[in-house]
């Protein structure tokens, strides 16, 4: 009985793996249940280990080749640097969170946070001092190393320079005597010209030689030994933390919402006290006004939010929301229109020219068109009801306010919708028009009405193809989104990449590659989710899946 139970569990697990599209792990599960271990181990070696090894080889090559390629924004970052960038991004997010917490903390929480932050500050100050010392020591010992490699070349450079200088003056003198001789008709014109040419050639070659040496010197200076760099980096990081906690303490003591509010209320109280003892009408009016305005300000301070900086996490969240909205619009348009196309050949004939012409249009063009057309609906976005509701309405949960919906996001979502529309539409039309004739005959025999025919027969029968189309649509949408965000500077991964590119530092290069991985991994998971849905709706045991 237990054997049977475990078998049931095993096959359930295998099916779940299959549906979720991770069939690679099939032999692992079978191995765990001790089913033909030899075969499973072979399968694991073939279909899991080899691919892993291949990926590792690729990373290894990247690690070797990347840093050798020098670009305007420094060398191509190695995998390690990208990982470092990911860690930095996470730390950045944490810091923003800490700052926000400091901003909103109230009463005892604030005091506790303050004490904690002060403790951390001293901790990091000590650490920074230590690290800076280490860094200085490393710089010193490194300097010796640099000097050791620098000095011989420098010496060579100096001696050569001196030598060439004397040679040059010598040649100059020789030419001037030759010129005098020419004036006295003791030398020919050709001799003088030849000497002049010889001189300029010499000069050129000497300059070249010196340039090579100075380049070598520059290279050595520009690339200090690794340990100096690392020590400096560690010290800088600690110093960053110090800066951060100073900022947190600053927020806790002065910038904090409650602190500000209390200060304003105090002012109001003072004004009220002054009002009670006011003797002149003008004075009374002034104090009364102060009471009202300070109370008003205090009330507003309560609602204030901390202006968080954009982290890659938030950008990813916003990108996902944008692609979701765009995809949803695409589905809501494409599926009904696709069904109509599939059901009625006249509708299909009417729409075919439109589909054929607009499908190949580039997302960039759509974005610009939407910026003009949809932009006309929000001449003054700050006061438009849509953005006011999305960003301020109390009815909506915080995670929607967090999106900070703006026109650029709407344009990006519309562009995604426009580009994701076509595959879904075409596939839905195909799915509906290629329904088995027998199924339609069943509907006829049962005399189903239009709606039950639609919902009981047509839609279920075409679902596998519809979902195949939706899967393509989501993939297209995600790809288009990144480009649209970069171009419309709507906050999201696309804008992140674009900003980092504009930044142009070596660190930002690593951030771009980090974003590349984030985009890829999210795209992969979106696709997997769609495959899963597609498998769940396909009724003939997965034959409809690609």
């Amino acid at each position, binding site marked *: 009985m237990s054997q049977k139970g475990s078998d049931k569990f095993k096959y359930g697990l295998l099916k779940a793996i299959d549906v979720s599209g991770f069939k690679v792990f099939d032999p692992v599960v079978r191995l765990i249940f001790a089913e033909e271990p030899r075969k499973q181990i072979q399968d694991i070696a073939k279909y899991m280990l080899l691919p892993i090894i291949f990926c590792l080889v690729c990373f290894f090559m990247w690690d070797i080749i990347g840093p050798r390629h020098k670009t305007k924004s420094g060398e191509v970052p190695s995998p390690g640097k990208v990982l470092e960038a990911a860690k930095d991004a996470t730390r950045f997010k944490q810091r923003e969170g800490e700052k926000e917490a400091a901003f909103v903390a109230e009463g005892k929480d604030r005091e506790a946070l303050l004490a904690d932050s002060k403790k951390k500050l001293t901790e990091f100050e000590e650490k920074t001092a230590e690290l800076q010392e280490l860094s200085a020591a490393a710089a010193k010992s490194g300097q010796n190393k640099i000097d050791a490699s620098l000095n011989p070349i420098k010496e060579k450079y100096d001696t050569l320079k001196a030598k060439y200088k004397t040679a040059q003056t010598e040649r100059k003198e020789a030419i001037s005597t030759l010129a005098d001789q020419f004036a006295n008709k003791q030398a020919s014109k050709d001799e003088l010209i030849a000497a002049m040419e010889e001189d300029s050639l010499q000069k050129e070659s000497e300059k070249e030689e010196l340039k090579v040496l100075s380049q070598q010197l520059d290279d050595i200076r520009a690339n200090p030994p690794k340990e100096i760099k690392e020590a400096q980096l560690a010290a800088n990081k600690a110093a960053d933390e110090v800066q951060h906690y100073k900022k947190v303490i600053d927020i806790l003591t002065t910038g904090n919402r409650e602190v500000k509010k209390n200060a304003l209320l105090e002012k109001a109280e003072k004004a009220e006290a002054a009002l009670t003892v006011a003797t002149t009408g003008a004075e009374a009016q002034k104090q009364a006004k102060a009471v009202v305005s300070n109370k008003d300000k205090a009330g507003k301070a309560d609602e204030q939010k901390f202006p968080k900086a954009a982290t890659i996490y938030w950008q990813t969240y916003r990108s996902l929301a944008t692609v979701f909205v765009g995809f949803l619009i695409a589905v809501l348009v494409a599926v009904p229109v696709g069904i109509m196309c599939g059901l009625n050949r006249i509708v299909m004939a009417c729409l075919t020219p439109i589909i054929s012409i607009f499908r190949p249009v580039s997302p960039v063009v759509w974005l610009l068109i939407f910026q003009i057309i949809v932009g006309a609906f929000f001449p003054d976005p700050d006061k438009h009801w849509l953005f006011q509701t999305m960003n301020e309405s109390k009815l909506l949960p915080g995670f929607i306010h967090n999106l900070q919906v703006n026109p650029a996001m709407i344009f990006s979502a519309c562009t995604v919708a426009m580009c994701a529309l076509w595959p879904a539409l075409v596939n839905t039309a195909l799915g509906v028009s290629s329904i*088995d004739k*027998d*199924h339609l*005959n*069943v509907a*006829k*025999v*049962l*005399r*189903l009405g239009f709606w*039950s025919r639609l919902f*009981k*027969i047509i839609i*279920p*029968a075409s*679902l596998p193809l519809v979902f195949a189309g939706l899967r393509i649509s989501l993939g297209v949408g995600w790809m288009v989104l990144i480009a649209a965000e970069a171009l419309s500077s709507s906050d999201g991964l696309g804008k992140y990449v674009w900003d980092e590119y504009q930044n142009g530092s070596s660190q930002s290069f690593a951030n771009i590659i980090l974003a590349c991985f984030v985009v890829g991994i999210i795209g992969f998971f979106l696709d997997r989710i769609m495959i899963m849905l597609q498998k769940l*709706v396909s*009724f*003939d*045991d997965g034959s409809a899946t690609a």
Partner: protein
Amino acid sequence: MSFLEIKQANVGFGPVSNRTEVLSDINLKVEENEFVAVIGFSGAGKSTLMNLLAGLQRPDQGSVTVKGQLVKEPGPHLGLMFQNYSLLPWLSVFENIELAVKTVFPKLSKSERRENIMHYIDMVKLTPAAEKKPHELSGGMRQRASLARTLSLQPEVLLLDEPLSALDALTRSELQDQILNIWEKDKRTVVMITNDVDEAVLMADRIIPLTIGPQATLAEEFRVNMERPRDRHTLNDHPEFMRLKAEITSFMMGLNKESKANANSSSTSMPDIKPKDFSLPSARLDFRNRKAKPSGSRSVA
């Protein structure tokens, strides 16, 4: 007036200039609770004839009537059982039948409906597989589910379009028995299309051959005057069965020859051999004693 009647029906396909008449001058009368088999070669237009009866196709000329009413469109009273099951693959057996029952008898209460559905599933002996999806079933089980769905419509006429031609011989004979059993318990008018002479003789009251198309038409009928219930095991010894089978087979072969001769004047002459049963009567007896179910119709080829 007959229960089911086709009068001088013609069906054709293609443009007027190049029209192919599939069926021409079809006349058929079926009495109430009669079991009629239409037998014909593949491609003769059998399925077109069935579509005509089911109302899926209107005749170009002539008429199809049931109980005197003109058949204009398909409906649940014309219970068509499709050749390739036509179960909806995204629904389980139960849900497939439920869809039919819900649509045709919308007034039933939930429990009544459930009882009704289970009754038909039980009738075709599919109770253990009620919750299974069609792709999890064998061909025979699918056809049984399809039969249950058709029966659940409680049709006035049961139209069976080559219901068993996609099944293997053993499953086939089992299903033949089941259909006959159900029909005998719950009599109704049946028109079955088949290409199997044994099947037709075993099951039908009348057998009507369909000549080879184009312009196929119904030929002279053969009446099966055998008492029911018919036992397939003793049938091979039944003189009437042997006679009918031989007659129909030779008639059909004749049709085939004729059409071949029409299509192509150089016909191949066949050797003059008559099929014969070589097995010993005692051996056949043994079979029965072992309670095996030989597909009797096949043992005499």
